[in-house]
């Protein structure tokens, strides 16, 4: 392994581990500015995590080991997914044809355990969140796959390494303008999978209208830190994938700089959407996701009929 590759890998790990907690801070700051408030500091996410990691924990007597395993598996799965997505340089830490499927499956594993941990408490509220999360993610899953398929069709390959090739200055999106449509679909999945408006409202104080937050009501201390960190990593991964679709990526460390800009840009976009929109009625969420799926299918149809 030469020095440049080693540097790339170290950079990848550093970005994956250190950057995510910044994103919720950016989103909240944007929302605060739009609303004319000053809002919490950008680093609030890190401070929250540090606080939670120092705390003890209270466990419900109803719960089993599943409740304790949920945050651990949830975080391990999203971090493993982060090893598959190219962040700095051409390839990720682990790269092989078909890694995009493993990426989606790992996000599924994270969700599976989060939902189980919620059901483990026997609480009506957490069951509600679990039910919504399980149901809506069944709609988000095909959209994510259609977006990934669009990328693969455009690149004629089945791995992130070839699909998100950063070599040269032209972005994937410039090679195939229709990928911007797929990017729009991906942005919808990003909002849904990361519990954002218009699918979920992370800042509401009413449990009845929540999805993700209500699932983790019973978690506290390091467990909650794992969950919040995992959620931030997930938002970071979706933002990074989105950035790869719409931005030109130069090779080398400059690519990492573009990635950071792109990810922060995605967080700003999320903040603007949250400022401008209200949450959809729960019954409308499947329609929102089916619409996103139709967008991705449209992009695919254009790619397939116009030739690649």
């Amino acid at each position, binding site marked *: 392994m030469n020095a440049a590759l080693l540097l790339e890998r170290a950079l990848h790990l550093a970005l994956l581990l250190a950057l995510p907690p910044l994103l919720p801070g950016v989103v909240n700051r944007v929302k605060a500015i739009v609303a004319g408030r000053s809002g919490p500091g950008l680093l609030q996410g890190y401070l929250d995590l540090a606080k939670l990691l120092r705390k003890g924990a209270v466990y419900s007597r109803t719960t*089993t080991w599943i409740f304790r395993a949920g945050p651990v598996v949830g975080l391990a799965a999203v971090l493993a997914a982060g090893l598959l997505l190219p962040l700095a340089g051409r390839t990720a830490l682990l790269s092989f*044809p078909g890694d995009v499927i493993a990426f989606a499956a*790992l996000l599924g594993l994270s969700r599976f355990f989060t939902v189980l941990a919620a*059901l483990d408490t*026997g609480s009506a509220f957490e069951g509600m969140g679990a*039910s919504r999360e399980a149901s809506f993610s069944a709609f988000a*899953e095909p959209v*994510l796959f259609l977006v990934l398929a669009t990328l693969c069709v455009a690149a004629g390959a089945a791995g992130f390494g070839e699909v998100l090739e950063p070599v040269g200055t032209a972005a994937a999106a410039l090679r195939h303008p229709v990928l911007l449509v797929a990017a729009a679909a991906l942005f919808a999945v990003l909002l849904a999978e990361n519990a954002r408006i218009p699918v979920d409202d992370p800042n509401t104080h009413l449990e009845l209208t929540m999805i993700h937050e209500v699932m983790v009501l019973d978690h506290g201390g390091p467990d909650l830190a794992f969950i919040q960190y995992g959620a931030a990593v997930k938002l970071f991964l979706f933002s990074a994938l989105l950035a790869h679709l719409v931005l030109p990526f130069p090779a080398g460390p400059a690519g990492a700089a573009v990635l950071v800009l792109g990810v922060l840009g995605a967080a700003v976009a999320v903040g603007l959407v949250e400022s401008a929109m209200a949450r959809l009625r729960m019954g409308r969420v499947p329609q929102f996701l089916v619409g996103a799926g139709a967008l991705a299918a449209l992009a695919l149809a254009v790619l397939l009929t116009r030739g690649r």
Partner: protein
Amino acid sequence: MSLLAAAALLLLAAALAPVLLARRDAAAFRVGTLLTIAACAAGFAGATAALRDGLNVEATFDWPLPIGAVRAGLDPLSAFFLVVLFLVAGLAALHGLAAHPARGGRAGGRAAAFYALTVLAMAGVVAARDGVLFLAAWELMTVASYFLVAHEDERPEARRAGMTYLIFSHAGAALLFVLFALLARHGGGFGFDAVRAAGPLAPALAGTLFGLALAGFGGKAALFPLHLWAPDAYPEAPPHAAALLSGAVSKMGIYGLLRALDLLGPPEGWWGTALVAVGGATAVTGALHAFAQRDLKRLVAYSSVENLGVVALGLGVGVLGRAHGAPLVAWLGFAGALLHVLNHGLVKSLLLLLAGDVADATGTRALDRLGALARRMPVTGGAFLLGALALAGLPPLNVFVSEWLLLSGALRGAATLPAEAAAAAVVALALLALAGGLAAAAFVKAYGVGFLGAPRSTAPLAARDPGGLRQGAVLALAGVCLTLGLAPETAASLPAAAAALAAGLSAPPAAALEPVAALSRGVLLLVLLGAALAAARALLLRRREVRAGATWGCGYEAPTARMQYTAASFPAPALGTFEGLLARNVVGAGPEGYFPAAARREERLVDTAGERFVVPLARRFLQALARVRVLQGGRLQLYLLYVFATLVLLLAWQLVLSP
């Protein structure tokens, strides 16, 4: 080979012994089942050896009947299915050996005999190398397995499920008779080698034969819309028999499809598209209904439907790849489908056996009367969690590996095949993803409602792990699932040769297993990451205060177990979108107004596939038959006249035709 012959003889003995011991039922069951287990052990050893050595043999046995010689043989495809068959049948029988007497199962001798006969018939189906033996074994398998479905025939539900199964099976078998008759006409004999030697079929004929095979074998594999028998049959059969039915018998439909593809020669692109469409519809329907079910066994049974659909989808991807000259896509599709056959056979028998254990321990199959079983039945709960994770297609379990193989086949197909085939591959991807999402939701629900939370009734309060042999069989199955999931490379190498055969290749493509090696590293990394985080959590909490308390009720102080989300309310947000596939018949209305009086509301789930496709078709068929019924006068003289007239006609035909 001698091991496989020994297995066949032992199975024959296992089918006969209970008849000889008919007076002593318990002994008959034990002897028959023990012989079956021994046969499966021998057969498993023989089949794995044959698979490892890539054995490809064929033998002819002379038979003093007009149909001529009987041919049997073994190739990687057959050997692979034999491995699945003997593994599933052996471990399920081991479970049944303890469970059947413990749950007060009646007529054990009959159960053991028909179990052995079903296994023997399946081995015959897989080994047959001519149409006559194939169909004979096929029919024997259907009839013998009917007696397994309808075993508890004192219950009307079991009788009804058995009859439904029999009708669907025979309707399919009728098509298979046509299929093999047409193949024999093309080949000039019933032997498979004769069919292959006769060269390629005309495209129209090949297409017709493919359609016959898809409908005929699709019924046995419970493919949409011929899946309606499955959700009734599996829950009604004794658990170990249900494991055999779902784990092995339904897989014979897949074997039949693969053998038909083998006989029909190079496929056309639209066959793959048809398989993708049927498989996708099956997978989505099965997963959706699994998500909606409130009966643990029915949920697991519908998940069988889903997974057979996934297998058919994989076959479709393989056929697409083969038809368009993309060996890697073809191999990935077929390898994924075949490995899924093995994986699903293992996981589904695991879950059906566990569902049986849960039903025995609690006296109910209703998810809404269970809850909190993970605490009371830790081993059963742990094994069920493994199975649930596997069927949700998640790493590090075995089903993830097979789904990864066929999904990456579909992804490569979408990326590299010509536009129309790529479009089919994209549809395959999207439907698989939808089915996968729904299946994950279904098993989150099964485990979350059935095993976690607070007890939902008094039923689970006294439940305990069954222990003993039952636990042994279940842990063995769970162990194999976990091992295959932790070692994707080993798992993917099992169907490698059989998949190459199905893809029309002499060996697996060179680059096929490389990504799987990388996948293995990824799985290892995931496990290490999980262990590291678990250690970090333990370290963080070591010197902190960790207390036990009540579940946070958002300020509400007196929650009850009935306030938990139920098996009916959990899937509610998703179901409305799928009215075309699943309807909910509601009788009565729930409590209404500020001061509600007593109310009763009943909701029944309806599989609309039945009402949309199968029932109208059957009704039309019966109407057509009503016209023929004129012939059935009910008078003996009339029937004698028919016999006489037939003889005269045959005589006349012979006289006219023969020179």
